[in-house]
């Protein structure tokens, strides 16, 4: 067994798939940044709001007013450098740090795909993705290699496989499979799709979408791994992600996933891509190949593998942390994020905060629009850690205004997957006295229903 493992880590493979992945990933990231900027979202999401929701432990990560544009600028340029393979190691580190900083600025905008990109960025810091078909290799033949260790390419496949498989596991619950929720809510609202509008109203279609979605997520990594099913699998990838793009507002994620899965293809395919790009940019392709003729990339230090081993153990275990919490995961969301639970539930909520003077009993309600954008208010009202952080913000805000003995109470209602709304947070608990932690939040009221499954 041990020798098999040892043998595997000595295996080499062509560097070209890694190079193509680097180019496409860098370009996609560059386009994402441009799209974000052009949509005016930097202004709208990071400059206009008066208050930002921080991740636990990352309270120091904040937008820096209009300088936030500079972070986005740096991130975009770094992505372009990654695509070019120019000063790659620095570029990918800068990309990872700037992108992760952006992601951490406000958890209102949390998207699984941002987390995915941070993970890929972190992984790529340790991979020799500039060994081939890069400016680095072109300028310095010392850095040009045609072969890389096989595990470097496989590590990206593994990460993609985890994302899909875990997303599939998360769908194995009674709401998704037996009630076709939340698709029963989401699909009928897509009535205006050409040709599909009618279908979106049919209950059988909701079940078909639910089951095939779960099946797709669970099987696609394996279908992509085996050569005989690969083209079929890739066709599925394209169809599935184009469909999610049409149906849901998830931005660039579908395209990024489509492009990423190309890593599963043979070197022949990737060579064609590099030749095609060379032709497009009028680069002397033969020179590129000649530079790196038959050289094998070797890691200078042997700490890379242990680091990546820790990374992947973390990836495999972290999504299961919800098991440590006793209550329904969808209701309390303790351990929900960073676990590849993508488009999994529909939650709507309403939260109103009461500021009370504990001495005199004087009290008043807060108008959330004074502090939050509509998007922030929507996200806040269904997620307990948001509610808690906002309550503390309100308490401190009114204390600074001269109010005394401030206690903050929330009256809130949440509807989950089409169930009737019910009270969410205990209205008699002074939230100022509660602190954020990884401990269970016992001030969330019971769900009064069960969702079976993983």
């Amino acid at each position, binding site marked *: 067994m041990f020798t098999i493992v040892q043998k595997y880590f000595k295996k080499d493979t062509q560097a070209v798939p890694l190079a193509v992945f680097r180019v496409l990933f860098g370009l996609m990231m560059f386009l994402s940044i441009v799209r974000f900027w052009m949509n005016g*979202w930097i202004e*709208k*999401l990071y400059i206009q709001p008066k208050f930002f929701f921080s991740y636990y432990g990352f309270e120091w990560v904040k937008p820096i007013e209009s300088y936030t544009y500079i972070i986005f600028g740096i991130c975009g340029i770094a992505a372009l450098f990654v695509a070019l393979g120019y000063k790659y190691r620095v570029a990918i580190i800068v990309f990872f740090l700037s992108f992760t900083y952006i992601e951490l600025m406000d958890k209102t905008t949390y*998207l*699984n795909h941002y987390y995915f990109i941070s993970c890929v960025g972190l992984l790529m810091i340790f991979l020799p993705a500039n060994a081939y078909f890069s400016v680095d290799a072109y300028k310095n033949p010392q850095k040009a290699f045609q072969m890389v260790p096989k595990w470097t390419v496989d590590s990206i496949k593994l990460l993609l496989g985890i994302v899909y498989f875990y997303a599939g596991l998360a769908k194995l619950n009674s709401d998704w499979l037996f009630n076709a929720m*939340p698709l*029963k*809510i*989401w699909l*009928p*609202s*897509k*009535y*205006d799709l*050409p040709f599909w*509008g*009618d279908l979106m*109203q049919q*209950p059988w279609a*909701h079940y078909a979408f639910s089951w095939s979605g779960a099946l797709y997520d669970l099987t696609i990594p394996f279908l992509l791994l085996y050569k005989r099913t690969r*083209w079929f699998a890739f066709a599925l990838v*394209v169809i599935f992600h*184009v469909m999610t*793009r*049409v149906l*849901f*507002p*998830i*931005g660039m*994620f579908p*395209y990024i996933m*489509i492009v990423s899965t190309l890593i599963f293809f043979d070197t022949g*395919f990737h060579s*064609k891509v590099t030749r095609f790009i060379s032709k497009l940019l009028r680069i002397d392709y033969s020179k590129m190949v000649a530079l790196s003729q038959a050289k094998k990339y070797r890691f200078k230090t042997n700490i890379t593998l242990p680091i990546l081993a820790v990374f992947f153990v973390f990836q495999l275990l972290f999504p299961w942390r919800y098991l440590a919490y006793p209550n329904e995961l969808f209701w309390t969301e303790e351990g*929900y*994020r960073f676990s590849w*639970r*993508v*488009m*999994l*539930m*529909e*939650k*709507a*909520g*309403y939260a109103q905060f009461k500021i009370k003077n504990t001495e005199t009993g*004087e009290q*008043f*309600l*807060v*108008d959330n*629009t004074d502090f939050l954008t*509509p*998007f922030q208010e929507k996200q806040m009202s269904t997620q307990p850690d948001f509610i808690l952080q906002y309550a503390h913000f309100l308490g401190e805000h009114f204390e600074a205004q001269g109010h005394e003995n401030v206690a903050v109470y929330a009256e809130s*209602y*949440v*509807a989950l997957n*089409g*169930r*009737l709304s019910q009270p969410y947070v205990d209205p008699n608990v002074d939230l100022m006295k509660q602190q954020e932690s990884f401990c269970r939040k016992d001030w969330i009221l019971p769900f009064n229903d069960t969702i079976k499954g993983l």
Partner: protein
Amino acid sequence: MKFLKLGILLAIITAAITACSSDNDSPEETSDTFDRGAMLANWTDNIIIPAYTSFNSRVVEMETATTTFTETPTVENLQTLRSIWKEAYVSFQNISMFEIGKAEEVRFRNRLNVYPTNVAQIEDFIATGNYDFDLPSTIDKQGFPALDYMLNGLAVTDAEIVIFYTSNSNADGYKNYLKTLSQTILTLSNEVLISWTGGYRDTFVANTSSSASGAVDKLTNDYIFYFEKALRAGKVGIPAGIFSNGTLPQNVEAFYKKDISKELLLEAINASVNFFNGKNFNGNSKGASFKTYLDYLNTIKNGENLSALINDQFTIAKNKANELNVNFVEQVETDNSKMLASYDELQRLVVLMKVDMVQAFDVTIDYVDADGD
């Protein structure tokens, strides 16, 4: 062979990208069993446009009565103007929720009904004769609340009020201010009505897209926003001191007239119920509405009968509001608990609409990437 595959693939990807690159999409033909176009048509043709038409004729009368009064400032003409002002104010409760299109552009609700009105500034404007109602800073010096002050709040008796328009040293200033107030309301009302009866009706009805810019999504958001902020908070919650330390009787709607605050609230609740049920403004027939849409979606979902829950809660809220004093200033000062009770019932409606109804409709609140968690 491989090239063929690659070619097909690229074609699919290109097609996909071009097919869905429009996020604020243009309307498409719909043919599912619930026709949102029909709902939009019922809203506009049977509710919105008739309500605006009715309001506009009240405002025309109000403008004429204002001219009569300023030309001949007598107690009798004051009383006539006042009763027409009240009619128009009540009628306004039927259109205030439709802050969309032209109304949104001119900030109709803010121009017509921001209260409490700023008396000191109004007196200042009258004294200097220098004011521009188009400026956003003047919203609390115009509209019905400013007229309320000019017709009911200048003095205690009608005879004393008339003196401001006759023998006051700046009588012309008062007359001009009153006239400008009336005329501004008429101009705005005309603008909005003409926009609806002009091209906007068709644009609105055709905009059946399910994006944040679609007419159903937008008006749903507007309706709930109105109900939560203008009706629940504005008319009941704020005066009852829900959002402040202590009550704020001066924030009652029609503060100077006083005895119509309940009538305005009841009219607003009725208008909200009728819109929810798609009831024709000029009759009892009902068309496609939030109610029928919820009922349709429930045939798919098989959940709680949400439309019935909402209608029941509307009835409870109306009954609670009926128990209130005609004069909310008195109500707040003598027994505020009744105001609070009324607020609580309206609050339950907000939860049902903002949480449950919005979830059922899957209304988009804004155009940003979000993956539903």
